């Protein structure tokens, strides 16, 4: 089992980890020959939120080498905080430090029977002298058998796809709603409308966005007016845990475009694009199961 890569875009990697750090104390990364998959699938997650992502190697790494008996795939369990700390030290973008990173090499290592993901950083100090920093993050390499058991949640055909407003803006609103309710209703229709609302005994708050884009899926026939299939004004609702929605909104640090899919009364799927949609370096897919609550419907 061999694994080594130069981290070319440290800030991107850092922000991806930052986006999911709050979700799980330990999470999985599956490295394949083409992609890096970040997986958070713990049952104990807030509101059952999960993340399944696929990130192109090119968008982060160069000199990527991987070799294993398990189809050249390596799946590891990493402590998110430690990984984040290592990447933070590697990124020269920190505003308080004038440390300049020259090269960051990540490799799989083993010391004293402990598997490590080691980061070797060579950089320059503010006066241009060389500094070498090495971080060893303790990891666990998963057995192929266990990897096989990982499975992504299944969901039916989404009722609606809609482009979300900038997540930062959503976040300010949802943060205001959080003290008032534990459950957030997300509604959207096929006519550019998105609503976030809470409804409790004491308060009812509704925020509506018009002019959100409904992206075309490839199955859609552009000639066919969508009304024929469905009434575009019909709102599809899903109730989710407001805390888990906020966890998803942590990904605002990395997102450019986010598409939300609603499977009415079943779940919500959020695709957070890293980089431009057309040339996305990857996508973080958040899955938030619906809370089934008759009153809220």
């Amino acid at each position, binding site marked *: *089992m*061999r694994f*080594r890569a130069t981290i070319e875009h440290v800030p991107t990697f850092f922000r991806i980890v930052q986006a999911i750090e709050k979700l799980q*104390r330990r999470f999985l990364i599956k490295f*394949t*020959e*083409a*992609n890096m998959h970040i997986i958070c699938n713990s049952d104990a997650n807030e509101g059952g939120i999960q993340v*399944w992502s*696929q990130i*192109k*190697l090119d968008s982060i790494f160069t000199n990527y*080498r*991987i*070799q*294993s*008996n*398990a189809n050249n795939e390596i799946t590891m369990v990493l*402590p998110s*905080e430690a990984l984040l*700390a*290592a990447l*933070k*030290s590697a990124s020269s973008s*920190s505003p*308080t*430090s*004038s*440390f300049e990173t020259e090269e960051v090499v990540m490799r799989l290592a*083993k*010391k*004293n*029977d402990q598997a490590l993901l080691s980061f070797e950083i060579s950089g320059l*100090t*503010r006066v241009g*002298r060389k*500094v*070498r*920093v*090495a*971080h*060893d993050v303790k990891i666990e*390499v998963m*057995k*192929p058998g266990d*990897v*096989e058991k*990982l*499975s*992504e949640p*299944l969901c039916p055909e*989404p009722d609606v796809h809609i482009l979300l407003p900038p997540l930062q803006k959503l976040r300010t609103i949802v943060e205001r709603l959080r003290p008032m309710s534990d459950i957030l209703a997300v509604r959207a229709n096929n006519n550019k409308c998105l609503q976030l609302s809470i409804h409790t005994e004491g308060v009812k708050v509704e925020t509506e966005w018009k002019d959100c884009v409904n*992206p*075309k*899926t*490839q199955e859609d026939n552009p000639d066919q007016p969508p009304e024929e299939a469905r009434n575009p004004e019909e709102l599809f609702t899903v109730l989710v845990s407001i805390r888990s929605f906020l966890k998803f909104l942590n990904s605002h640090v990395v997102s450019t475009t986010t598409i939300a899919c609603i499977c009415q009364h079943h779940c919500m799927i959020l695709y957070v694009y890293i980089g431009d*949609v057309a040339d*996305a370096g*990857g996508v973080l*897919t958040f899955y938030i199961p619906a809370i089934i609550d008759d009153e809220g419907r």
Partner: protein
Amino acid sequence: MQATLDSSSLKPFTKALICLSKYGDELSIYATPERLSLSATNSSKSAYCRIKYEKDFFTRYRVADHQEGRNDWTSDNAENITLTGQLLTKSLLSILKHRTIEKAVERCELSIVEGGAGNGQDGPESKLIMKLHCKHGIVKTHRLLLLTPTSLMAPGAPNNSNESRLTIGPKALKDMIEHFPVSKGIKSDPQLVWSFGNNDVALKSLESSIDSRGKGQLSTELTISAEEFEVYTIDEPPTTIAFHLREFNATIAYADTMSLGMELRFTDPAAPLFIDVEGDCSEALFVISTSQVSSAGASASSHRRNVNTKKREREETLGKATKIKRPMRVVQPSLAMERDQPIANPEPRSCVPSSAVCQEFRQTDMPPPSSFPGHSSFMEKAHEPLFLPSSSQLSAADEAVLRASGLEVGTMDELTEMLEGEGEEVTFGFTSQPPDFGERRGCQGNAEERFEIIDETELEATQSSYDSSKVWATQFPADIMHDQNCTSDVPTSV
């Protein structure tokens, strides 16, 4: 005592108090006609901070309390007047750190009103009165109760003969330490091991088992050229010392806000680290105890032991030879000092007209303005105290604490062992990288055999649950895999 600060000097004064508050809760004030010094010691007596202000720092400064005219002796021998007091740093800071203070205050008057032990008009307590003259003629007056310090204490003077000396700017130091993540808990106080070699300085995080879960997952090592230091004089390179970061970071922050350079002095792994930060009218001394890299380092050193090369072993014995002796030498001068130094036995009043104390300071060149309950010790090097206990020797309870600290060194053999372990772990820490490669390669080969080939199913399948239902721009074409395929045969560790 009366001291007046204008708005420009209030800011550094507040910064100094912030730094002092990081060292300890209790602030000791020691005023002489020439200077005012403020000091603090942490609860375990392993760190000490003292900031002295020349009287020029203040727009007005006098110790003698003529106006009050209560103490007759003040006018008689004004040169020898000293004044001590003690209060919670927090209580001063809560006044000064208020957000409106910085903008609004034009002048700050500090005065100490002595409690009338003999002529108690104001009650028996001394008070620190802080008068803030703000804009629009607003005057805020705070009266703080001043406690009576029970004893005076000073850090032992460093032994100059084998002293290592470093000078560095706070920013450069901050840049180095920033690479070592600090877990968010208030309790967390990581320790760093510094190895000063001939040309390089290596810093290494020292994990102890009591760390929060997150932090034990990461170990960090930094190597930097010795040129980063403006002055770099190491007595006997390589030298390794280890100390906690909490107080050190407070010192860096203070030096940074004051834009002053830092001078670090240390002797042995067991002797404390001295840091001087000198400004125009201020002079700050920080003393931080260093610790043996022993119990906590043992687990880490077992990593290393497997990968030792012959070269390293040779160097170790070299280091060992020098290190067995040196800590022993350090103990003695400071113990001797303890005996020689007249112990300041302050009177149970806040105002101490003690010329004896002053003399003593001159003698040691270490004015000890601070005062603490008599027992003090630090776990270094058997029972060597960092601060000289002024009124009593270690109590039985203290010894028990020491023992509990796990650093107890009973016999010479144990000490030797301990030091040996330390030298191995830290001094040559970074040189272990190359042999490590070989080790790792071997290990990985083994590890690899444990894994069986499996079919690449899972992730494809998971993503395809969306793939099949919706094929749209969010999904990535599988063909990006192909460019990378060729690389997989190349060995990774070269």
